[in-house]
């Protein structure tokens, strides 16, 4: 019962936020939700399979550019581009995953990084199609989605759906199979689980969810930029996930909230936000290996 009370309180807080947050606070909250969805998507692969992808910016960016291009060139209404963004990001993840999930550990990290940078290089320079490094700007997501409150609820809804999906997968036979493959690939294969199929499915789903985060980013910034696909964007998801605690389902979301809120707080006082973030991360790695979620006694680690 106590847990339920907590959940209700958090839910009430989240749902009422647009009515008591100042304008700037609401903008920051939207950004936190977008990163939370992105980091949760990344963590689906990282926590369940142990594979560290350094290429999720490609899926985030693929989603964002799908939205931007469809709106700018085909005149699609914003909301209708969501399925397309998820689909394109998922397909890209399917292709990249097809080549990457067979490799292990550091090679997987490097290969996803290389693929994502390849996509970035093309987007960054293909002026005729993507606008190159100017990006695609001046997008108007329609009257309703131009309103910060509406966008907040949309982001909250998508994050909730994404979180629910990841949680459902975690508790499903699919999730157990993934963790079996993570912990002992040889034994998993011996009992008939094909690592390739499972890993590819997880990677594709994760990429599709990251695409949904990219979809939201376009409405928030009213633009799409090549930076969305740069490797430092992938690093943001990784930081948020580890900051919050990758082994807890809510860890990436918690990490995103802290990351974005701390960033907004520090940036309003000093321009040296990366320095502060770097020092926080150093302290985290050296003194708090379980992430913020580990502060709660450690008993909540997922099993």
């Amino acid at each position, binding site marked *: 019962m106590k847990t339920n009370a907590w959940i209700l309180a958090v839910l009430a807080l989240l749902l009422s936020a647009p009515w008591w947050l100042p304008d700037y606070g609401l903008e920051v909250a939207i950004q936190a939700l977008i990163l939370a969805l992105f980091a949760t998507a990344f963590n689906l692969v990282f926590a369940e399979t142990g594979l560290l992808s350094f290429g999720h910016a490609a899926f985030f960016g693929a989603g964002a550019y799908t939205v931007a291009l469809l709106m700018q060139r085909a005149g699609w209404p914003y909301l209708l581009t969501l399925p397309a963004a998820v689909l394109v990001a998922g397909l890209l993840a399917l292709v990249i995953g097809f080549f990457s999930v067979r490799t292990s550990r550091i090679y997987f990290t490097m290969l996803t990084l290389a693929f994502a940078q*390849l996509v970035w*290089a093309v987007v960054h320079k293909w002026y005729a199609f993507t606008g190159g490094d100017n990006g695609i700007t001046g997008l108007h997501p329609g009257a309703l989605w131009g309103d910060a409150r509406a966008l907040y609820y949309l982001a909250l809804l998508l994050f909730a759906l994404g979180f629910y999906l990841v949680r459902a997968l975690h508790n499903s036979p699919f999730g157990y199979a993934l963790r079996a493959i993570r912990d002992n690939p040889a034994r998993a294969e011996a009992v008939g689980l094909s690592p390739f199929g499972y890993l590819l499915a997880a990677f594709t789903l994760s990429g599709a969810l990251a695409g949904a985060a990219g979809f939201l980013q376009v409405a928030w910034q009213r633009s799409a930029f090549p930076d969305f696909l740069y490797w430092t964007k992938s690093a943001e998801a990784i930081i948020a996930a580890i900051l919050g605690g990758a082994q807890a389902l809510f860890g990436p979301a918690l990490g995103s909230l802290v990351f974005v809120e701390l960033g907004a707080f520090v940036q309003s006082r000093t321009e040296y936000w990366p320095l502060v973030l770097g020092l926080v991360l150093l302290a*985290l790695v050296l003194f708090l290996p379980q992430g913020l979620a580990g502060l709660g006694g450690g008993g909540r680690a997922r099993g």
Partner: protein
Amino acid sequence: MDLSFVVLQFLTGLAYASSLFLLAVGLSLIFGALGIVNFAHGSFYMLGAYLLYWVVRGDPEGLWWGLVVVAALGFVIGAATERLLLRPVYGRPEHYQILLTYALLLVIEDGVKLLFGSAYKSLGPPAALAYPVWIAGAPFPAYYFVQIALALAVAGALWFFLQRTRSGALVRAATQDREMLEALGVNVPRLLTVVFAMGIALAALGGAATLPMQTVSPGIAVEAVISAFIVVVVGGLGSVWGALLGAFLIGEIQAFGVLVLPEFSIAFVYLLMVVVLLVRPWGLLGRPPAVRT
């Protein structure tokens, strides 16, 4: 496309490859011996350029002794970094090490901004090298030859150190089997400190050596580290010769790719990285991982 143009383009590629080699070889050594992917490597490269600017106080004539001082400073900074920050995370999962070095990247980037300001810094070549050399009727910066010579000298010195000295043999052994080395009574922690410090010294030297030809800003670190990754992945993680070959290939692909498809020359480089990882994940000159890993 006439021959002199090709030669010129080749030499330009070689100059670029030289700074890539200095940048990447330390990353490769560090990965080989410590097993750490150093995301802050490009930051030490960038820091090296700033340190040079600082020690010579903007005077191009101080370049020669400046390079020596920067390499020495890089060694000290590298040793301190390894002792204080990296040592506690050995044996922890890789992502902590990646996070740690990424945190270092952020700290160094902003630290440099704080100390030196965010304005671009530049330093011309020394007066004796400030003139172009004429090759087949076209001007070519004389300083590029210094960069090429420096890279070759470092490669030669590394070869001598690794193949012909006892310490070098220990470093090579550390990339193969650290536990065995420890069992043999070698002071492995001190060895790892030295390897890391050497790698950082080389990165700082590489960054400093580009300052006479390029303006630097703190932002070059994130690009540099990715270039270094490409070089070592293509050449083979942990392999010095791989870094040399990788740097050469990337430098020339950039130099000639610009002629074929100017906009996408950088995409060619990533494509090469992808292809190598797919066909030969351990790199062109790397060794396939032993079964026990």
